[in-house]
């Protein structure tokens, strides 16, 4: 089933940082659609919950050097 989850990343320091995070998340298995907004810090991920593991999303964002908060 398709699910949606949101995070908030308040410490993006440039617009291209947001696109890097967007790309990293889209490359994960089972992720269908990702929107990362630099201006509001909102991260929205649509994923297939039979494939993707939502717990890894937070880790992925942290790996890019940012601190996500669940929203």
């Amino acid at each position, binding site marked *: 089933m398709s699910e949606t989850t949101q995070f908030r990343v*308040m*410490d*993006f*320091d*440039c*617009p*291209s*940082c947001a*696109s*890097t995070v967007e*790309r*990293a998340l889209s*490359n994960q298995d089972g992720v269908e659609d990702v929107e990362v*907004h*630099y*201006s*509001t*810090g*909102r991260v929205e991920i649509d994923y297939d919950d039979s494939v993707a593991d939502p717990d890894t999303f937070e880790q992925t964002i942290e*790996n*890019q*050097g940012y*601190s996500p908060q669940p929203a």
Partner: protein
Amino acid sequence: MDTQSIKQDYRKHRKAIIVAVSGLLYAGGWTLGYVSAFDTASAAILILAAIVGGYDIAKTAYHEVKSRTLGIKTLVTLAAVGAIAIGSYWEAAAVVFLFALGSYLEGRTMRKTRNALEELLEMTPDTATVRRDGEQKEVPAREVEDGEIVIVKPGEKIPVDGDVVDGESAVNQAPVTGESAPVHKADGDEVYAGTVNQEGALEVRTTGAGSDTTLQRIIQRVEEAQEAQSPTESLIDRFAKYYTPGVLALSIGAYAVTQNAILSLTLLVIGCPGALVIGPPVSIVSAIGNAARSGVLMKGGEHLERAGKIDLVAFDKTGTLTKGETTVADVAGFDAEASDVLELAAIAEKKSEHHLGDAILEAAQDRPAAVTDGGTEAVQADAESAPTEARSVPDPDDFDVVAGKGVIAHQGGREIVVGNRSLLDERDIEIPGEVAEYVREREERGETVVHIVRDGVVIGAIAMRDELREAAPGVVQELQDAGIETVMLTGDNGRVAAAVAEEVGIDDYRAELLPEDKQAVIEEFRDDGHVVAMVGDGINDAPSLATADVGIAMGAAGTDTAIETADMALMADDLERIPYAVKLSKATRWNIYENVGLAVLTVTLLLAGVLTSYVTLALGMLVHEASVLAVIGNGMRLLRY
């Protein structure tokens, strides 16, 4: 302090700690560098400073490269590694430290911009007191079901959207409408989640809770607006896609020609498009956040940029410049009793649902049996002297509305026509001279007059008045002072329009417009090269709001359609927000230009400086980071506009 909380604190302040440590190492290494005996130690400390400050940057750069994006962090990492490779340790440490410090400050200030909405989010209380099974119970606010009764004590925030079913109070609706003067609420009135109950206890029947409240919808809309790209932003984004690889190519080319590694590394650093890409979003997010706190919803960067070019504001007259509370000012009977005239008009208008009809019906119901005088001697309609009992008005047998002109009805074998001159002309009804005289006199006072015709004979006229909003003349003046042309659009005839236009001090007016004409007039203004804003109520005026470059809907808090169609929605029914909204848009447009200009100027000067060897790697980074912070700071001014 246990290890757990130390760890937590470290995570929270990680970026600040890294910047501080890297800065201290950098300062230490630099100082040691002055003593020739400690050269090796100095180099080691400077490399350590670069590693501490650069670890996170390099990590992100690694991910950037892995996901095939070329970002600023990749450029900085390349520059730092390159500087170490050629033995410029001081340069490497300086670049890393300055970049880390800059990013930290950028992140902090951007967070402030992003948090402009947080105040709104915090408005809604987490719990609500509901009446369930005859008992009062405290439950999470989002779990309140529609139709449940919520009890709100004085001083509490209202947790849900709903209708008052019991109690009476003054409510501060600032979080939703931006208007801090309390609004009186009693039985049947609508209240919004997040607003503050100030005086008495209220019982509210829930119509929306959790994410289904007006405040939540506002917040969601504001976020969408902030995320939508403005034309300038998309332009810059497209540009940046080619720009960054271009900088890399330039740097490689420079090395190939000059064999000067430092020069090409410096080019890498100063060429980062930082200030350019950050500027427009910061300006727009700040402006939209500021507007939302003042009760003005802006639909997005695109609309905001367009609103910055407005040079003509068209106002709908009724309900926008006027209060929209039409009352009967005068009834005149000609060879008929004034009370009969009013009675007949009321019968015809009973089902018309037109605002003039409502005023007539109200006057007829409030009126005692008869206080009448024939001829031109008029009777003042005075609500104070109304009888205690409302009189009942009989239903018409049938009635027909002629849009923009009037009503034709039949009742008890009589034909009653209530309408303006054009309806009477259309039906070949002769208007006696004394009636025409009376009508002209009232119209010159800005009153709207309808003729009452019984079986083809004019027996009277009713003059109605819609008071001007107190703020209207000031608002028009303020717009004119800002160099904006003002025009009033109305369905009333020219005489009434002229009188009202003079009272408001508006530049121009267009009268006798049917709803579709208003749209055509807006079109005409646009064809003349104006950037037009149309101010209306959002429902009747929806087509002209949509046609205008910027549609501004007033009093939108309760009406989702208005919020949907308008480019800007004023949550409160408050005309005075219009100059603010227009000026904020103009300030935002300038702010974006300033930011783009500053960014381009900085890069150009730095480029020239590097090519003429005036600018070193560290100085380039310092100026680059300073320009990014300056752009953010400039954008944030709009938060306090």
